[in-house]
């Protein structure tokens, strides 16, 4: 099987789940998924293993492009709303991930997932709005109708708890 397909098969389901979470629209998620893999593959030389794992790099590309798409969609909808129109929603690094690393990462994932679930709802929501919707602190404060300082504190506390949970694996 060609190398690109191996790379794609390894991560496509993970990246697609992330893009669906961000965009909540299958057509958009599929377009951005394609863009993400093409971008990652054609700029593989930019990947720096010292700065993080390949999956972290791929996810950062996907998230960034997903958030960009989400923002442009919001701008488009806002413009359409403002115009009073009906909005119509159109609907070398391949062999480095050993089984042991996968298992460890899976345990870490589980730890972060359960830590996230255990966070007070206000902290969890603030983290999710930032990560999955790309909202700034000010936008989150406005959305939740809370003071900016409160939001900042919630995010810092939430992140600290996630980190504490991860440190058990080091």
């Amino acid at each position: 099987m060609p190398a690109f397909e191996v790379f794609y098969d390894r991560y496509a389901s993970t990246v697609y789940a992330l893009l669906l979470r961000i965009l909540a629209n299958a057509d958009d998620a599929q377009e951005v998924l394609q863009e993400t893999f093409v971008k990652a593959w054609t700029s593989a030389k930019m990947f720096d293993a010292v700065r993080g794992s390949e999956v972290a790099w791929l996810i950062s590309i996907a998230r960034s492009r997903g958030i960009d798409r989400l923002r442009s969609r919001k701008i488009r909808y806002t413009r359409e709303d403002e115009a009073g129109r009906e909005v119509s929603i159109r609907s070398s690094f391949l062999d480095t991930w050993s089984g042991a690393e996968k298992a460890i990462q899976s345990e870490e994932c589980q730890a972060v997932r359960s830590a996230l679930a255990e966070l007070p709802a206000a902290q969890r929501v603030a983290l999710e709005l930032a990560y999955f919707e790309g909202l700034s602190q000010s936008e989150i404060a406005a959305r939740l109708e809370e003071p900016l300082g409160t939001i900042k504190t919630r995010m810092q506390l939430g992140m600290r708890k996630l980190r504490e949970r991860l440190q058990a694996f080091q």
Partner: protein
Amino acid sequence: MTHEDTESIAALDALGVAAAGDLADLAEHIASCIPCRRAREDYRRAVTLLAIGLEPIAPPTALRARAASCL
């Protein structure tokens, strides 16, 4: 800037919400502070795991060939 300040900025940076003005201070501090650099790596890893921790969803099978044709 204290270590605590730096860690707080690193946490927000991992989420992509740190103030632009704080990022330069963060970069300067972690250039010479190993614990804070480690904290930034931990926070980045934590947010990556937020994504990896989602239940995987298989995309339509035709998408792989479509992506490969763009290379």
